[in-house]
């Protein structure tokens, strides 16, 4: 089937099998490998992207289901925030993950960042508990979440305790 997606602001038209997962389409067909695959049951959130601005686990969506929609992946996040794609720019959530040491191996990170962006769009001033519950669908094995929570609160401009 032919589908056309707007991916990180660019129109991308492809011929895909109806059963093709969005995450495989992004990674294998469009070369956007920043979005990762960490499980096969929509449990881990490593594949989280934004579809029309809302976080979606792209391993649970068929590419044909998002025909005509706007997709934002980790590669397009900085551009989405700054309006251009200047090299080296980072979105405030990416920047906060950096300054708060919210990543170690980095595999869950793109999905975690996208989930955090979506969370902050829905709730710009979350409490610590809001962040913990809001990120429940994204698993990380390295950080114990401590610094991820701090990063999201920092990005929101909230006070973070030690």
């Amino acid at each position, binding site marked *: 089937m032919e589908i056309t997606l707007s991916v990180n602001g660019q129109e991308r038209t492809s011929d895909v*099998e109806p*059963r*093709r997962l969005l995450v*495989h389409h992004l*990674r*294998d067909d469009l*070369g*956007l*490998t*920043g*979005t*990762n*695959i*960490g*499980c*096969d*049951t929509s*449990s*881990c959130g*490593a594949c989280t992207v934004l579809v029309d601005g809302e976080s979606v686990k792209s391993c649970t969506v068929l590419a044909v289901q998002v025909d005509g929609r706007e997709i934002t992946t*980790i*590669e397009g*996040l*900085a551009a989405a925030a700054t309006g251009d794609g200047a090299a*080296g720019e*980072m979105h405030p959530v990416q920047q906060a*993950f*950096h*300054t708060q*040491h919210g*990543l*170690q*191996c*980095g*595999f*869950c*990170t*793109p999905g975690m*960042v996208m989930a955090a962006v979506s969370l902050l769009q829905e709730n710009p001033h979350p409490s*610590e508990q809001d*962040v*913990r*519950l809001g*990120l*429940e*669908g*994204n*698993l*990380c*094995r*390295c*950080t*114990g*979440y*401590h*610094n*991820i*929570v701090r990063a999201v609160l920092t990005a929101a401009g909230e006070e973070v*305790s*030690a």
Partner: protein
Amino acid sequence: MTATETSPAGASAGAFGQRLLRKEDARLLTGEGRFVDDLQIPGALWMAMVRSPFAHARIRSIDTGAAAAMPGVRAVLTGADLAGAWAAPMPCAWPVTDDMKAPDHFPVAQGKACYVGDIVAVVVAESRYQAADAVDAVVVDYDPLDPVVDLEDAAGDRVVIHDGLGTNRSYTWTLSPDPEAVDRAFADATHTVSERYVQQRLIPVAMEPRGVVAIPAPHGGELTVYSATQIPHILKVMIAATCAVPEHKVRVIAPAVGGGFGSKLDVYAEELIAVAVARRLGVPTRWTEGRSENAVATIQGRGQIQHMELAADAEGKVTAVRANLTADMGAYLQLATPGIPLLGAFLYHGVYDVPAYHFECTGVFTNLTPTDAYRGAGRPEATYALERAMDALARAVGVDGAEIRRRNYIAPDKFPYESIAGLTYDSGNYEPTLDRALELVGYDDLRAEQRRRREAGETRHLGIGLATYVEMCGLAPSRVLASLNYGAGGWEAATVRVLPTGTVQVVSGTSPHGQGHETTWAQIVADRLGIDPDAIEVLHSDTAISPIGLDTYGSRSLPVGGVAVAMATDEVIAKARTIAAHQLECAEDDLELVDGELRVRGTPAKAMTLQAVAMEAFTAHNLPDGVDPNLTAQVTYDPPNFVFPFGTHVAVVEVDEDTGRVELLDYAAVDDCGPQVNPMIVEGQLHGGIVQGAAQALWEEAVYDDDGNLRNPSLIDYCVPSAAEVPNIKLDHTVTPSPTNALGVKGIGEAGTIGSAPTVINAIVDALSPLGITDIAMPATPERVWAAIRDARSTQSGTGEGAS
């Protein structure tokens, strides 16, 4: 030593010790980082594995015809088809005893499948979807055999798994310096404790599943392998040994690797199959593991039954420890399987000054996924048994858990401490970590609140648990490894090279996968050279770029690899001094290195920057006689001893009597890994490690049915905690340098996990102790806790714990 002391041995106050933000972050935060599955390899074929659905079965026949005829399928290969590809069985590098029994283990099963997930055939196709489709079309005729699932049943040899071995018992390893002294101590004891603990099997769940790409060069003979591995260097040697590829033609690259926790410290069937298929077909061949596949195909951790006994005098001073283990090897011995429980063998008396000691471990085969290293590897198990038993002893003696520990700690003036188990603990001062950890949670107030709730008859019980640990890490002194029959050394290599324009490359034999070596190694070098860490690049994890190394595991990277980096830097400085002295016509001793400049003392105008020295080395126009034209040094460092980090953790839990739910309210950890190169990274390691250990205590277990089927292979059923389940963690530290290395440093990668499981379970038992409950098995699920409370209520008395 106190929390305020910070003076890394041999380093000035520069980049060492700073909370430098990580160099690794930008690429990982933007999607630029490349994990194995991200690699775009033109023309690569995809493999999918046909795995046994039976835990124990003879393979009568395999019909590959239908699968081979499917679209895109290029080959379907069985164990028989690939038998000629192997020069040797898969490696077990640790034959722990001379008479250890080990079955031949080939990447694709031949004749018999020995666990659910054992590979019986390989499909090779043009796309990953086509390969997956064709797996279902391979028809395997199995003759199911009686599976051996229960560990104690396996040890009894009711059914022998590997016909040629005659038994399921692989080995028995004993450490018993004076058995009579142990018997005497138990005979003379006022208090004894006898406990049985189960270390459930755990699925490591690195967030990146495994993956491999093998790229052959059929005409040139080279072979490049990308793998999601912790051990590119070891894998290179093992590919050469098992696949009969000349080692000098093999290049192994670990690109970005998404966590390991020991599960990628192995040589896996799929890696060797990729090599064999790529060479057979002459095209790049790749495989990426699925998550549910990972649950059975990647090694699991723990899997032990522990019998733990303590003897103590009237005051609760421990006089002997006796630990007997049965350890689950799974169906085969992977790279380090038999040795894993023995990494804890020396630590069943831990931080306590104990005069008599007996340890024995029997390794047993079962029809389950092989076990191997999982974060802490043997040391969490030892710490768990000991710290649980110390709480049992405290109850027997009638004192607080903190008090029983104070009475038994090795005194600070006894270091270096010659342990009864034969180790020399490098340095330690345990009681300050206990004091500070209790302070962080407000221990006295918590005990008061606990009393209040108990007296009020509240059904939400408060529990406070603690554990003090010491671990041996920094694997490892090669001669000690030889005495343990380990098949390799424990050294690490580093090269430091100042480039002609003055920037620096560091080549390390460690292989980070989240630990941040690119940042911390740069800090070590920057600190010594007096230059900006941004002028330093750390290269690693590619055997063509970093040909010498032993990789990352066992909290070894800093105390072995990082120390090698420091030593190589010092050699570079010495060489720079020689060259600069020649140029400046002064004595070498007159030169001091300040801010990246070699200056003549007292004549600061007479100076050469490191960059100028490097350019002199490069042009070689005017070097002293006998000096090579480069500003490079390579060091291979073999540590003289392990290092022994330690700490005390405290957990506060609330247990709801009506539902059995345990909530982790607070957690504090005070750890000591000596001087910290980057406290931010140390804290990150602790946060993650603590949650991983707490997850063993509360949520995680690989659950098998009687037929050997894994009941919870997906992340829906295998409960890796999310942010919603865990609290913020309070950390502090003390600084007790190790006297055995140039930086004074100790490893910290596993410490959090080692400390946290017993801490959390001790807290739950503490909460429920008024009901007479003395044991809750891991994981302490609501069902299990609720049942324990129900049983305790119905008997109206304690279950007893063997304490007298």
